[in-house]
C-alpha cells in the first residue's frame, strides 16, 4: 500500500515516541494545552489524572484515532522513532497498524468467531497463507494468555467469552499484527479484580517486547506496572476547562516525592 514516494514507517527493534507541542482540538476548543512527552522503548508509561483532563485524548492522538471524532483534529509533532506520524502523505491506517490500541470496553467482533477476531488484522496486512495465519493467531493468543482457554473453541463467537477473556482477545488481536507501540485506554476499568490482575501480568510480560502507553483511573495500577507516569489536571482557562500535563517522571518519584503539590493531592485522594 505504501507508495515509494511516501514516507514509510520504518521498523526497528526497540521503538520510542516523541511528542512535541501536541495540541488536540475538538472543533475550535483546545482540549489539552500544548505538551511534550517522551515514550521510552520497552517501558510502560502511565497517563493518570481526573476525568476530563484529556489523558485519553492525548493517547488517541498517538495513533491518530483522535481525528475520527467528528470535527476533531490535532496540531503539533508526534514522532514514531524518527517519523512524524502527522506528516502529509502518512496513511493513518498504516499508523494504526504500527501503533495498536486496546479500548476500555472489550470488543469481540460479533460477526466473527474467536479465530477470525484475531486473524482480521493479519488479513488486513495481506497475509493469506492459512498455515501462517494459524501460527500467528496461536502465537498471539498465547502471548495474550488466552490460548489454553480458547484453543478448543476457536470457531465459537467471541461473544461467548467472559469480559476478561474478551479483553485478552482484544489484546491478542492487537498483538497479532506485531505493532511497534501498544496503547491501552483504561483496559481494566470494566473488569473484575482477578481479570485485572491477569491483564496487568500480561502488560508486564509484553513490556519485554513492546513499548506501552496506558491510560488508567486506578493509581495503584499505575504504581504497580508503570515505569514512568505522566499526571494530567484540568485547569480553567477563561472558564473553559482545558487539560494540562503538570508532571512527568519515573513512577517511583511521582508517587513518593512529586514536584507539583496538585500531584500529591491527587494521588493521595484529596482531589479528582
Amino acid at each position, binding site marked *: 500500500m505504501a507508495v515509494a514516494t511516501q514516507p514509510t514507517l520504518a521498523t526497528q527493534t526497540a521503538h520510542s515516541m516523541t511528542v512535541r507541542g501536541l495540541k488536540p482540538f475538538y472543533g475550535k476548543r483546545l482540549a489539552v494545552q500544548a505538551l511534550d512527552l517522551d515514550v521510552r522503548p520497552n517501558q510502560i508509561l502511565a497517563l493518570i489524572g481526573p476525568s476530563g483532563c484529556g489523558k485519553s485524548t492525548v493517547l488517541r492522538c498517538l495513533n491518530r484515532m483522535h481525528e*475520527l471524532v467528528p470535527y476533531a483534529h490535532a496540531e503539533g509533532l508526534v514522532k514514531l522513532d524518527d517519523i512524524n506520524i502527522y506528516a502529509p502523505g502518512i496513511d493513518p*491506517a*498504516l499508523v*494504526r497498524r504500527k501503533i495498536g490500541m486496546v*479500548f476500555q470496553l472489550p*470488543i469481540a*467482533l460479533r460477526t466473527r468467531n474467536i479465530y477470525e477476531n484475531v486473524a482480521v488484522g493479519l488479513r*488486513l496486512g495481506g497475509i493469506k497463507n492459512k498455515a501462517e495465519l494459524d501460527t500467528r493467531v496461536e502465537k498471539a493468543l498465547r502471548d495474550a494468555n488466552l490460548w489454553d482457554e480458547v484453543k478448543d473453541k476457536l470457531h465459537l463467537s467471541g461473544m461467548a467469552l467472559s469480559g476478561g477473556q474478551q479483553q485478552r482477545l482484544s489484546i491478542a488481536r*492487537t498483538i497479532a499484527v506485531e505493532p511497534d507501540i501498544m496503547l491501552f485506554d483504561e483496559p481494566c476499568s470494566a473488569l473484575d479484580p482477578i481479570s485485572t490482575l491477569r491483564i496487568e501480568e500480561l502488560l508486564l510480560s509484553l513490556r519485554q517486547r513492546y513499548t506501552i502507553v496506558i491510560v488508567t483511573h486506578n493509581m495503584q495500577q499505575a504504581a504497580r506496572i508503570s515505569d514512568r507516569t505522566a499526571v494530567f489536571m484540568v485547569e480553567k482557562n477563561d472558564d473553559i476547562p482545558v487539560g494540562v500535563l503538570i508532571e512527568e517522571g519515573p513512577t517511583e518519584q511521582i508517587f513518593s516525592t512529586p514536584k507539583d503539590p496538585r500531584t500529591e493531592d491527587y494521588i493521595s485522594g484529596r482531589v479528582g
Partner: protein
Amino acid sequence: MTLETNMLTYPRRRRVDKALRGCTLVATALAIVPLVLIIAYVLIVGGAALNRDFFTQTYRPPVPAGVDPLTGLPIEGMEEGDLSQVQARGGVLHGIVGTLMVTITALLFSLPIGILAGIFLAEYPDTPFNTFIRFCSDVLSGAPSIVIGVVGFTLIVRQTGTYSGIAGAIALTFLMVPTITRTTEEILKLVPNTVREAAMAMGAPMWYSTLTVVVPTALTGIVTGALLAFARGAGETAPLLLTIQGNSNLSFNMLAPLAALPILTYKYIESPFPAENQLAWGTAFVLMMLVLGVNLLVRITTARIKR
C-alpha cells in the same frame, strides 16, 4: 414487623393502577381486534376461493349458470340464471407472476441504492447535504403512492409509449428506496461506536470497517428494512395501475403490460358478479401469504447466517 400496609393512600393507588392498566388493555384490544378480524376474514373468505385452477390458470371470463363453461354454449334443458348464479373461472397465476417479477426487480434496483444511501447517511459526518437527503427521503416515503404512479406514468410510460413491467418496477423503486435508506441508517446508528473504533484501530480503512464489521453487525435490521420495503411494494396498487396497467394473460415480458395481484384484487372487487368478488379475497389472501412467506424465508436465512 408486619408486611401489611396501613397507608391511607394505598386503596386509591391500587385503584389508579388498575384503571391505568385497564386503559392500556382496552387500547391494545382496539388496535389488535380489527387487525385480527381483517386477517381472519381474508383467510376464511379468501381461503374458500382457492383451488388448483386459482394457482394454475390465468383470467377467463365468467359464465352464467346454464352455460357450458367449456364451450360457452347454453346447456339444453337449463335456463340462464341471474348474476348471482354466474360461475367464476380461471385463476390469478398471471398476477402472482407479475407481482413477483415487478416487486423483485424493484427490490434489485432499490436494495443497492437504499443500503448505500443509508450507509452514507449513517457512517459519514453530517453535512447540510446529508440533512437535505434525509429530508427528501422522509418526504418521499410519505408521498401518496398515486403521485409516484403519475411520476412513473409521465417519465416512463409516456416516453416509451407503452405500459410496461419495467415502468412499474421503477415506480416501486421510488417507493422502496426511502424505506430502505432510513431503516438502514437507523439500524447502523445503533451499532456501538466502539465497534467502529476497534476496526479502525486495527488499521482498517473506512470502507473495510463499514463493509466487513459494521454492516454485518447490523445485517438483521437491514434485512428487516428490505422486507418492509418488499411488503410495501408488493401491496401497492395506485402506482402499478398507472405503469404496468394490468394484463389478463400470463406474460413474462417486462417491456409490456403485466398483471399484478393488487390490480387483480381491485378489478375483481369491482366486478358485478359475486363469484368474481370472491376471487378478489382469494388474491388478497395470496398477496398476504406471499409477503408472509418471504418474511419467514428471509428471517430463517439470516438466523442461519448469524449462527
